[in-house]
């Protein structure tokens, strides 16, 4: 696929115009390279996650087929796509109206500004086009050497566990590992310095005994493997599982790509909200001709539509940003505001601070979806935007609105965003039962695992670890240990304390 066809002149002019407006507003983005694609190529690129070259895998073919079908039946089309690289590549759909293209360009400016400036993207590889292409050639090389099916099957296994990573780990400075010299020093029982004649009073035998015990415990902990429960399961497997070189390469590729995509899942609401905020701002106040208003409004209404039982991240994101902007413009924040309990005063509260724009730029820099919602999703906003939480009613076997209570809605929202909506799984022990079995723990937060999937995923983990793999979780409020070994799958009730 050729990537660099020159953009038609009228679109070049449009891009220039939009980007001038965007920069005037203070958006700061990587250079953007647009490519106009027909819908087939668009679907292809979309199936490949926005990249021209990926490793061969049937899943891309499946996604492509699904996208093509839903386009052909007129159910959906991909308006725009942009990838987080420097320069950024963005794709326009051939045959879209000029108003649509204009909207997309403004939207893309917002996204690229977000990629460049949001903290959670700061560790991503901005040359990922090359990264993906390298991954592809690594995988192809192994396929030539070991056979396509063998490698593809193993990639299936890797994909099955690709969500067991810890995106936050990139931002945590871990304590340096204790040096060997230090370890020797601590071999001796620590005693409180004392003059000779005071020794037996200051360091009595009981005290020394206690110290010795503590030391032994510490040492035992060091022998644990891993030392602390580890959320980056993939990293643990890369380091400790008995993998062939090609297997390790494949797992590394999958882990690398999972980390690349993770920030996008962590900032979906903010990112879309930010882009929507800016396409709306740029188009309505600058770039729109009178004759285009109706078409624009139509397109925009489509983007922001809500449907029962669905959360539209575009809508939530943009409304919350606007709400923040309004609050900081009017000075509706800080101690005085929090402590005011007169609705009348609050309703007409306006300090004319005009800090809104500055504030939302700060928010886009420092927050992710969870902190964004946690900090700015307020009671007023919840009521104004008519949020509700829904759940499944077994008796009516239907999904129902459960509550409009602010606390409940907010908790539900935060829960669904925690760990990108994935269960939190940690490696507890790589030498479980002292027989080299792998023990994982699911940090149960009120929602059980999907058992069918869990079973199959365990089987895949077994293929990587090559020894039996168990996961400790809670099923119907009971502690259970699910295990997959060479004798197949089994589950039994356990006592949480026994697992250490």
């Amino acid at each position, binding site marked *: 696929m050729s990537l660099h066809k020159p953009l038609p002149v009228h679109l070049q002019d449009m891009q220039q115009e939009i980007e001038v407006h965007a920069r005037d507003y203070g958006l700061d983005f990587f250079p953007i390279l647009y490519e106009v694609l027909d819908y087939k190529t668009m679907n292809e690129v979309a199936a490949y996650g926005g990249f021209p070259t990926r490793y*061969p895998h049937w899943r891309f073919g499946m996604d492509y087929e699904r996208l093509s079908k839903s386009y052909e039946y007129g159910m959906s089309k991909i308006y725009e796509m942009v990838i987080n690289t420097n320069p950024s590549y963005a794709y326009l759909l051939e045959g879209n109206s000029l108003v649509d293209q204009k909207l997309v360009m403004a939207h893309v400016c917002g996204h690229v500004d977000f990629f460049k400036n949001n903290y959670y993207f700061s560790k991503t590889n901005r040359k990922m086009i090359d990264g993906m292409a390298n991954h592809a050639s690594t995988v192809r090389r192994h396929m030539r050497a070991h056979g396509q099916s063998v490698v593809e099957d193993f990639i299936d296994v890797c994909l099955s566990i690709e969500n067991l990573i810890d995106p936050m780990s990139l931002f945590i400075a871990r304590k340096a590992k204790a040096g060997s010299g230090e370890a020797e020093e601590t071999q001796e029982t620590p005693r409180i310095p004392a003059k000779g004649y005071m020794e037996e009073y200051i360091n009595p035998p009981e005290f020394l005994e206690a110290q010795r015990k503590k030391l032994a415990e510490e040492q035992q902990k060091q022998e644990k493997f891993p030392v602390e429960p580890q959320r980056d399961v993939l990293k643990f497997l890369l380091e400790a599982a008995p993998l062939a070189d090609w297997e390790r390469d494949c797992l590394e590729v999958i882990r690398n790509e999972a980390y690349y995509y993770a920030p996008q899942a962590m900032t979906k609401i903010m990112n879309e909200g930010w882009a929507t905020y800016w396409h709306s701002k740029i188009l309505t106040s600058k770039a729109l001709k009178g004759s285009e208003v109706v078409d624009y409004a139509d397109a925009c209404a489509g983007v922001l539509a809500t449907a029962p039982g669905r959360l539209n991240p575009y809508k939530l994101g943009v409304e919350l940003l606007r709400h923040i902007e309004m609050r900081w413009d009017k000075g509706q924040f800080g101690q005085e505001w929090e402590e005011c309990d007169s609705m009348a005063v609050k309703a007409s509260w306006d300090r004319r601070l005009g800090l809104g724009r500055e504030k939302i730029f700060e928010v886009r820099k420092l927050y992710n979806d969870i902190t964004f919602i946690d900090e700015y999703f307020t009671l007023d906003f919840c009521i104004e935007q008519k949020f509700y939480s829904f759940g499944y009613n077994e008796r009516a076997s239907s999904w129902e609105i459960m509550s409009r209570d602010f606390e409940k809605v907010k908790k539900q929202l935060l829960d669904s965003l925690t760990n990108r909506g994935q269960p939190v799984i940690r490696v507890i022990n790589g030498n479980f039962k002292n027989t080299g079995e792998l023990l994982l723990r699911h940090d149960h937060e009120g929602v059980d695992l999907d058992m069918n999937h869990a079973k199959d995923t365990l089987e895949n983990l077994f293929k990587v670890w090559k020894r039996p793999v168990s996961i400790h979780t809670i099923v119907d409020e009971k502690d259970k240990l699910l295990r997959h070994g060479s004798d197949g799958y089994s589950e039994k009730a356990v006592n949480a304390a026994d697992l250490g």
Partner: protein
Amino acid sequence: MSQKIDLDQRRFRKIIRGKIKDNLRKYISNGEMVARKGKDTVSIPLPSVDIPRFKHGGKQQGGVGQGDGEVGDSLGQDGEEQPGGPGEAGDKPGEHALEVDVSLEELAEILGEELSLPRIEPKGSEKITSHKDRYTGIRTTGPESLKHFRRTYKEALKRQVATGTYSKKNPIVIPIKDDKRFRSWKTEPLPQSSAVIIYMMDVSGSMGDEQKEIVRIESFWLDTWLRSQYKGIESRYIIHDAMAREVDRDTFFSTRESGGTMISSAYKLCSKIMEDEYPSDEYNIYPFHFSDGDNWSVDDTVTCVDILNNQILPNSNQFSYGQVESPYGSGQFIKDLQEHFAEAENLVTSEIKGKDAIMDSIKDFLGQGK
């Protein structure tokens, strides 16, 4: 430009094919596919294609939405697809098993491979002709709707240049009647082998819903296979108890009578249809008869054997008799047939004990390659 995605898509189709093949017996037995038939495709649920992950079970999870509605209002039944607007889906209730569309042709191929069914050598091929119109030439008369504009104006231009009425300064070309050209067509004979399937079913009281379901599933697969072998194929449906009549497909599967059973009535009607409408030198004829094996009297069975011997067997590719086990039927008829037609090459019988046996029975019927 060959797209890279084509390779991945081909891999995907291959995997699907493999999965369907592995689970074919299950798919055939539970009859799910029959209900999912579209015009040329069947959609098949394939949950095992999806990549498994540790993820939250759906029902405890719930989500957050936005908009009007009271607490307790329903947002949709389980499994119902939520109408989605443009934009990305957020949390959506319910989960959807992965469904893939497979063309009937491909399905037939899979069936053929799995059961190692021989391809059918059609008889009377090339003899049968259907006709197809093709636009091949131009002539000077014809209806206005077929007027060939370019040729007409070219003729007019030629005439005007030739007669000197064409002026470069005022290049107006006006065709007259003689200039007009029309597309003309030729009717070409199209060699084709034709076939007809005649389904007969006993609908007397002893054939229950389960028995009919089996017949329905089995006929779906027989249809699918035979359709993949012949271009133009017709299906006819005959139901009988003590009397036989021809019905349409829906009636065929939904009718239930309470009368007794005279199989000969169906055979008579079948042979009449064959005689009147499907000359055996032009048609490949496949009568299928499904019953629980009860017949009214020994005399009637003798009549049946007689009709089969003299009329149906000599004129059809293969006569197939499927006996569905039912708690009420005696199951005698299959024994009678086997006794009388031990030597007959183109009469096949098969006992279908339950849904699980459908696949074997299909193999019995289609394994002869006739």
